[in-house]
């Protein structure tokens, strides 16, 4: 076979798989979002409804706006906390050596843990009777000694954020260590010779050169934060009430528990829109050198 034919034959199966498993469901979700779409009513999946699902979400559903709000706060908090803490840890670990490399290897472990299991683990850690973190916070911050973390709307949200940050710091740290390693050492040394303080070197030399990697990290983490489902499901299942109900969880509940698959699809598509912007930003970094 000639190369000119072969090169298309080689990509064909992959394109077909991507089309069938990602593009088709996206389009079909969009179609469903304009239908009545009740799982228990045959034929309703083809019953055209116009924009009603969308207007319903915007005007009749406080729970929708609640999940938008929860997701937004959750994303901002987890992205900010994870990035800042991971940057700090990366600065501490970047110099290398036996001890620090060993720690870097350990960092892989939380990341290989399934998010669902992280959710379970944090529910365990914050159990009011025998949770280790619950006991720890009780001793350190006495007003929190007798609270039941997962029964309180604000504290349950805080636990969800903590679990997320805990799970993602290791990965972001490893990425940032890689980014720090690619900064030419002489620029930092030159600044130090000029007598700049450690903070000034970090702010004026390290940080600007790390900016592209930081941008990638922030975009990537935002995407994963917006999608969060597994941990929330295992940790609080959206509760107490709807205090920790993210968009993904809201869509899951409406689509699968209430069988309103048309409505769920329309909310799901609303979620795709910010993803498109983030993916566009991300793609720019991936293709910047080519």
């Amino acid at each position: 076979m000639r190369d000119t034919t072969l090169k298309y034959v080689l990509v064909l199966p992959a394109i077909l798989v991507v089309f069938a498993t990602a593009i088709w469901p996206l389009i079909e979700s969009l179609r469903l979002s304009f239908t009545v779409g009740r799982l228990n009513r045959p034929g309703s999946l083809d019953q055209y409804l116009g924009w009603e699902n969308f207007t319903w979400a915007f005007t009749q559903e406080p729970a929708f706006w609640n999940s938008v709000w929860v997701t937004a706060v959750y994303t901002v908090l987890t992205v900010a906390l994870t990035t800042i803490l991971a940057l700090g840890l990366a600065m501490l670990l970047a110099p290398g050596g036996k001890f620090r490399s060993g720690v870097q290897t350990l960092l892989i472990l939380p990341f290989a843990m399934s998010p669902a299991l992280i959710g379970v683990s944090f529910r365990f850690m914050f159990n009011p009777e025998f949770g280790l973190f619950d006991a720890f916070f009780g001793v350190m911050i006495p007003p929190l000694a007798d609270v039941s973390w997962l029964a309180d709307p604000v504290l349950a949200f805080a636990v969800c954020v903590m679990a997320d940050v805990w799970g993602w710091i290791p990965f972001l740290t490893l990425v940032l260590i890689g980014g720090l390693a690619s900064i030419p050492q002489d620029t930092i040394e030159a600044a130090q010779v000029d007598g700049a303080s450690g903070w000034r070197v970090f702010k004026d030399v390290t940080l600007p050169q790390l900016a592209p990697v930081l941008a990638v990290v922030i975009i990537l983490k935002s995407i994963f934060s917006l999608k969060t489902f597994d941990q929330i499901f295992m940790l609080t299942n959206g509760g107490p009430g709807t205090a920790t109900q993210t968009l993904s969880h809201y869509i899951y509940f409406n689509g699968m528990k209430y069988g309103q698959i048309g409505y769920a699809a329309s909310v799901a598509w609303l979620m795709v829109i910010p993803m498109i912007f983030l993916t566009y930003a991300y793609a720019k970094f991936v293709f910047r050198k080519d």
Partner: protein
Amino acid sequence: MTGKQKKQITRALQTALILIAIIIMLVPILWIFMAAFKSHVDVYQLKLFFTPTFENFGLVFDAPYYLGEKLVNSTIVAFVTVVLAVPIATMAAYSFSRFRLRGETAMLVIILATQFVPAVVIILPFFVMFRDVGLLDTRLGLILVNLAIVMPFAIWMIKGFIDGIPLDTEEAAMVDGSSRVQVIRNIVLPMAAPGLLTAGIFCFIIAWNEFLFALILTNKDAVTLPIGLALFKAEEGDLWNLLSAAGIIIMLPMFVLALIIRKYFVQGMTMGAVR
């Protein structure tokens, strides 16, 4: 304070901070490990010292939990997903790496973008379709949707590995009269083998930990390990010793696999955006 003293204090402070970070990172994992070896009496207390028992690991495989079935499901689903994804991804990755294709950038961007589509968007139409064709609660159905999340990673990661293989050996073999297919089989595949293995392990971990698809598509026969965790909720509350034992069965194999490919973990997750 002299400069030397100042330096020593900084170093001690740094070491202390690193140690605190490790403790925070490892404590939830260690706590699960300990709980898995505690009897059901000890697990409901904040005990550091206890008589270890292996009974939890036996109990999770017995009635009514039958974790063994879930283990088999998880293994088959993750393994078949990888076996399908890696060869298909390798073919595409080679072509993307070595040839100029019409619409190549567009294809690569779309493949990249599909990775970021929320799983919950993908699963709604699949649920409807699988219900109609009888693929609900089957391993085959789960494998098909898992390809959606695994394929983009595999293509991008393997492309990165093939990009790193120098062209000259391939060109020399072509001059000597080998066909392109022979070159791929005899030269490229052996040289890319470590990369393919790495990508395979990476995809295996993703498929093994996958949660939302299995939650929606399975309820009895094809339930995987992460969904199986929900079994250990009893009327009197969570059975933490059994949950922990199941948790270890889920995470320990992944720890081993992740450590094998640790050098490439970051590259795999960022799809080459951080080099």
